[in-house]
């Protein structure tokens, strides 16, 4: 390397310029030859569906918005509820709620998350159970759950791994509130 550089010093400026141009050109080709030639991967943001993006944005806060048709995303596709509240099941649900949920939810006031009082006037029973059983996917895929996450400062709904039976009992308890 040193030898070459010393030799360079003896050349006039004009020749030098030409050399630099040639080297630059050839060097570029060499560098390009090392590229993997692969196409760039699609941006992850391009995966979101057009319908989601096209959905009209409601200005009403998600916590007070009413959407009884939305069943949410998750294992529950339909829930049958008797006209009368099953008091035994509701008592069980209250017990589960107090043990597993009260660190973040108070029955009748906003805490870390929204209060469940009156939730059946705003949400379908399926949506409620899916939110309990499948919160990770709900906050990614369900528009309401997404908005709720933002409304509540990004505090995630924790998956407490309730069984379907326990989640159903909690739903019954919510009917009593």
């Amino acid at each position, binding site marked *: *390397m040193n030898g*070459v550089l010393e*030799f*360079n010093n003896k*050349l006039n400026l004009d*020749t030098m310029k*030409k*050399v630099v141009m*040639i*080297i630059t050109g*050839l*060097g570029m080709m*060499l*560098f390009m*030859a*090392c590229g993997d030639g692969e196409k760039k991967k699609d941006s992850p943001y391009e995966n979101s569906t057009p319908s989601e993006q096209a959905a009209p944005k409601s200005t009403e806060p998600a916590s007070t918005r009413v959407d009884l048709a939305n069943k949410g995303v998750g294992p529950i596709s339909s829930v049958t509820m008797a006209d009368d509240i099953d008091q035994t099941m509701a008592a069980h649900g209250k017990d589960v709620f*107090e*043990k*597993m949920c*009260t*660190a*973040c939810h108070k029955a009748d006031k906003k*805490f*870390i998350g929204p209060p469940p009082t009156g939730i059946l006037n705003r949400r379908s029973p399926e949506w409620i159970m899916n939110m309990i059983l499948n919160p990770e996917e709900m906050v990614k895929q369900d528009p309401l759950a997404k908005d709720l996450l933002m409304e509540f*400062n*990004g*505090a*995630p709904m*924790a*998956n*407490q*791994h309730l069984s379907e039976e326990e989640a159903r009992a909690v739903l019954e308890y919510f009917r009593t509130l």
Partner: protein
Amino acid sequence: MKKTLKITVALVAVLAGLTSCNNSENSKGRSGALASNVAEKVYVAPGEHDSHYAFLSGGYSGNLTVYGLPSGRMFKEIPVFSQFPTNGYGYSEETKPMLETSFGFIPWDDSHHPDISQTNGKLDGRWIFINGNNTPRIARISLTTFETEEIIEVPNSAGNHSSSFITENTEYVVAGTRFSVPVPQRDMPIKDYKGNFKGALTFISVDPEHGHMDIKFQILMPGFNYDLSHPGRGKSHGWFFFTTYNTEEASSLLEVNASQNDKDFIAAINWKKIEEYVNNGGGKMMPADYAHNLHDEATHTATSTMKKEVRVVDPAEIPGAIYLLPTPKSPHGCDVDPSGEYIVGNGKLSANLTVHSFTKMLDAIEKKKFDGDAYGIPILRFEDVLAGSVEQPGLGPLHTEFDGKGNAYTTFFISSEVVKWKLGTWEVLDRKPTYYSVGHLTIPGGNSREPFGKYMFAMNKITKDRYLPTGPEMEHSAQLYDISGDKMELLLDFPTHGEPHYAAAIPAEIIKNNSKKIYRLAENKHPRKATVDAETKVVRDGKNVHVYMTTIRSHFSPDNIEGVKVGDKVYFHVTNLEQDFDVPHGFAMIGANNAELLISPGQTRTLTWEPKKVGVWPFYCTDFCSALHQEMQGYVRVSPADSNIELSWSLGD
């Protein structure tokens, strides 16, 4: 212009060298295709899992590390004998009892030889055992929680090295002393060692259901150094073999004085016979102090119990249970092949590798072909028990493992290589260098009846130039080889933590589905848990203040505490209410003289804090748990010792 062209060509050549796609320096002359083939063999794509777990002892770290094979990636360091500020092991109130011994609290040890539990001689993947060498102890680690569940101290032992090897149905985990000592310990001149010191070989029973350990008996052997051991298996199940050195019984300058005899011994112990003797009331109880520490998964709490006596057996009481097999010279590793027929004595100062035959041993015993005795223990004739020798395979043999296809693999420390040889014909089949100075080697299941002979890794004592330099002190190095073909193939270098002596490895599918994800809150029986918000409180008991605290993303409850005074001892009992996989929370308190807590979902852990200064002092979560992790904090108000501020606590009020 001619000149210009020449110069240009020269410069382009230099440039081409600099920018070349093919890093020829690293491939060291191998063809590109071959090199990439090796890379594929260790490449585990992002998100995919390794095919094997490897558990490497930590040596002077006192712990056990978990690796994946073939990638050589480290997944976890499991604290065993050493305090671990990373998660509070040995600092939290629940785990401090794990490190109690008859010498008091010991924060460190030197962990050596992990061994996975077996059923019918096959790895069953329920537990892994490991020995503490310095303050003799054996630990049992659960392979569902990957946490240390139990530690038992071994009395009458010193330098607990020929440990912790298990019999083929995990009936016993066996611990042998390296250093013989006076038994019982007493004030006596060191020069009177010979004939007076004893070497205790300890058989610790393992409960088949929950794994709990209990010392069944100790054999008080002559005062040799018991170096390594392995159980008989298959036809030799019921026997245990220990290498010995220093049969000279020297107490000083062993480097010279313990290398005088042409042959030392492998001690063959018929433990079934001794077990029967003990079950019929044989042996005698002697006073001894040793700790038995047990961590309860339901209470999340360890307890330490000091035991007061141990059953000892004098070999003279039970003739026909122990024999000595002459083995050249200062044998180190003591390895039994999968069939149980061959016992390999790796004579570390011997030119040849000695292999004994179990069948020949039984025959010699039956015909009473003895060549004298040592302290009443019959010595068999070398020629009568020898199956064969591997002639001059290398320098400084240490350890041998088996591939289940009739081949053995022995490490040679001095010549820094692994040599593959054939059982029965004793011919050398292949040799590969190690970088550098190999100690142990491991084949998954390689010390069981059913080895999984695809990979072998060598654990080296010297690293030198294998990695980027990191100053005078550096981690040790391991090398992974593919042993599925006729010749061993070096695949990968990977750094290891501490000084791995031995390792145990197992196909991932045997244990990975048993790995626990969370602790169930409903099963939490910690006496100071708070599993619902209503149970959170702060209670004063004299100078002790107990905080019953919960965590969930992303707050502590309570997070404001007042009424604590200088001179108090504050116990934070923190229960993690999360019930989802991989959502631990941390707890760190400014000025705490111990460590942090890392609390797994559903677990309760306790940190003690002794506030020394008046003020308002924060605590926070150390494990990034959610987008609101930075908000996960709280304050404790500390008032002067004579303050009359009442205790109060709150969250969000």
